[in-house]
C-alpha cells in the first residue's frame, strides 16, 4: 500500500486528516476510494504527459534535424512552429484508414494496439519523482523488460499482417533486431541489479544520489561501459537510426508500416517516440541517479516533487536530444553489421561487465570507485 502513488500522499498528515474527516462525515472509509482516485489521476496525468512528449518529440526531431542540417524547420503553425504536432495529429485523424486487400484483418488491427499497449504499460513503474510513480513494484525492472517486449511483437505482426512484401521484410528484420538487442539490454540491467540487490526502481534510485559520484554509471569501470551498452542496445530496440533497418525508407519504402495510413500510422509513430522516452528514462533511473536531488534535498516532502520531476525530465530530455542527434549524424548500418554488433560485440561486452560487477562486489564489498579512493 505504501509503495503506490496513493500511499505516498497518505504519508502527509493533512491529506490523512482530510480523508479521515471525510470518511466520518459520509459514513464509510474513503481510503480505498482515495487510492483508486490517485491511480486514475496519476494514470491520466501520465498519459497526458506522454501524448505531449510523443507529439513534442516529433516537433523536436524536425527542429533539431533542421538545426543540424542548417535549415529552419517547421515555423508556420504557432510560435516557432511548436503547434506543428497538433496539426500533424489532426491531419492523421482526417486521413482515410486503408485496409489493404488480402491483409489479415484482426492482426492488422492488433499490431498498433500492441505497440501502444506495451509502451504505455511500462509507465506503471517508471518513477518520475518519489510520488509520481503509479506503483513501486518489487519486480519493477523485471516487469518493464517483460512488458516492453510487446512492442517487438506489434512491429512483427504489423509487417506480417499487411500482405505487402516490403512490410514483411521490415517486420522480419524488426523482430530479429529487437529480440537480438534485448539480450545486451537485459544483461546490462542485470549488472545494476547485481550491484543494488533489488529489482525495485525506487530502491535502485535511492542507492544513488544527486551528485554524479554516487551514480551507478560511475560506480565502477564496468558499469561505465555498461551504460553505453544499454544505451546503444536501447537505441536499436526503439528502431531509431542508425538502427532503423525495419523501416529503412531508402530500401523498404517504410518497412513494417508501409500499408498503415491515417491514425494507425500515427499510433505507431507515437509508440516509437514514447519508447525513446522509456529507454532514456530507464537509463536515467538505473545509471544516472534518477530523480534524486543533490544531497537528498527535501527528501520525502511534497515540495520536492516538482523539483525531482524537473530533474528527472531534464536528464531524460538530454538523453532524448542525444538520441535525435545520433539519428541525424550517423548513417544506417547494414543488416549483417547490425547482427555482428549485437552478437559479437555488445553481448560479450555485456557478459564481461556482468562478471566484472560480480567480482567487484566480492572483492570490494560493493563499494563504489569513489568510496575506495576517498577511504
Amino acid at each position, binding site marked *: *500500500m505504501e509503495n503506490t502513488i496513493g500511499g505516498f500522499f497518505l504519508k502527509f498528515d493533512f491529506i490523512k486528516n482530510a480523508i479521515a474527516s471525510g470518511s466520518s462525515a459520509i459514513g464509510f472509509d474513503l481510503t480505498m476510494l482515495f487510492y483508486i482516485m490517485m491511480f486514475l489521476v496519476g494514470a491520466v496525468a501520465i498519459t497526458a504527459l506522454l501524448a505531449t512528449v510523443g507529439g513534442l518529440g516529433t516537433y523536436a526531431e524536425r527542429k533539431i534535424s533542421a538545426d543540424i542540417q542548417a535549415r529552419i524547420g517547421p515555423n508556420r503553425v504557432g510560435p516557432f512552429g511548436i503547434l506543428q504536432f497538433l496539426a500533424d495529429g489532426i491531419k492523421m485523424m482526417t486521413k482515410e*484508414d486503408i485496409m489493404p486487400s488480402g491483409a489479415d484483418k484482426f492482426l492488422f488491427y492488433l499490431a498498433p494496439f500492441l505497440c501502444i499497449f506495451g509502451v504505455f*504499460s511500462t509507465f506503471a513503474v517508471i518513477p518520475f519523482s518519489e510520488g509520481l510513480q503509479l506503483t513501486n513494484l518489487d519486480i519493477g525492472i523485471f516487469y518493464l523488460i517483460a512488458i516492453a517486449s510487446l512492442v517487438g511483437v506489434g512491429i512483427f505482426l504489423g509487417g506480417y499482417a499487411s500482405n505487402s*512484401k516490403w512490410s*514483411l521484410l521490415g517486420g522480419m528484420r524488426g523482430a*530479429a533486431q529487437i529480440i537480438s538487442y534485448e539480450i545486451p539490454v537485459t544483461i546490462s540491467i542485470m549488472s545494476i541489479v547485481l550491484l543494488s540487490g533489488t529489482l525495485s526502481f525506487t530502491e535502485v534510485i535511492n542507492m544513488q544520489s544527486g551528485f554524479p559520484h554516487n551514480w551507478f554509471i560511475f560506480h565502477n569501470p564496468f558499469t561505465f561501459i555498461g551504460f553505453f551498452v544499454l544505451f546503444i542496445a536501447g537505441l536499436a530496440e526503439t528502431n531509431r537510426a542508425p538502427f532503423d533497418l525495419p523501416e529503412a525508407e531508402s530500401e523498404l519504402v517504410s518497412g513494417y508500416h508501409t500499408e498503415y495510413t491515417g491514425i494507425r500510422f500515427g499510433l505507431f509513430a507515437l509508440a516509437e517516440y514514447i519508447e525513446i522516452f522509456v529507454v532514456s528514462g530507464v537509463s536515467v533511473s538505473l545509471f544516472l541517479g534518477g530523480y534524486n536531488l543533490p544531497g537528498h534535498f527535501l527528501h520525502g516532502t511534497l515540495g520536492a516533487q516538482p523539483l525531482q520531476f524537473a530533474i528527472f525530465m531534464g536528464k531524460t530530455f538530454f538523453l532524448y536530444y542525444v538520441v535525435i542527434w545520433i539519428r541525424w549524424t550517423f548513417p544506417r548500418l547494414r543488416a549483417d553489421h547490425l*547482427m555482428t554488433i549485437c552478437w559479437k560485440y555488445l553481448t560479450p561486452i555485456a557478459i564481461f561487465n556482468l562478471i566484472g560487477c560480480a567480482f567487484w562486489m566480492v572483492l570490494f564489498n560493493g563499494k563504489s570507485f569513489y568510496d575506495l579512493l576517498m577511504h
Partner: protein
Amino acid sequence: MSNQALEVFMPISIMMGIAVLLFIGALLAAKFLSPFKPNKNKNMPYECGEEPVGTAWSMFNVRFYVVGLIFIIFDVESVLMFPVAVIFKKMVSLGLGSYVLIIFLSFVFILISGIAYCWKKGDLDWVKSYTKTSIRDAE
C-alpha cells in the same frame, strides 16, 4: 480486496485500461473524421506502382529462425540469472560472496560456452557460407 491486488494489479490494469481506451478512442475519432471510400486500386498492396505478384507470405531467409532460437536460449538463461543477481548483495554481506560468485560464474560459463559454440559454428554471421563446411566434410 487484498493488499497485493491493490498495490500490484490495480495500477497496472488501470494504466493498461487507459492504453486500451486511448487506442479505441483514437480509432473512433478517426472513423468519424476521416473519409472512407475504398476501391480496388487503393486497396492494392504497395509495390511501387506495379501490380503485386502473389501474396507476401512467401519463403524468407532461415537466418531469422536461427536468431530466434539463440534469443530464446539467452532469454531463458538471463531470466534464470535474475534471482541470483538479486540475492548476490545479501550473500556478500553475509560473507558468502566467493561461494555465490563461483556458482554464478559456472552459470555464466554455460551462457558463454553457448555463445562461443554458436560463434564457432558461424551462426552469428548473418551471411553464412554453408558450402564451405559441407564440401570440406564431404572430402
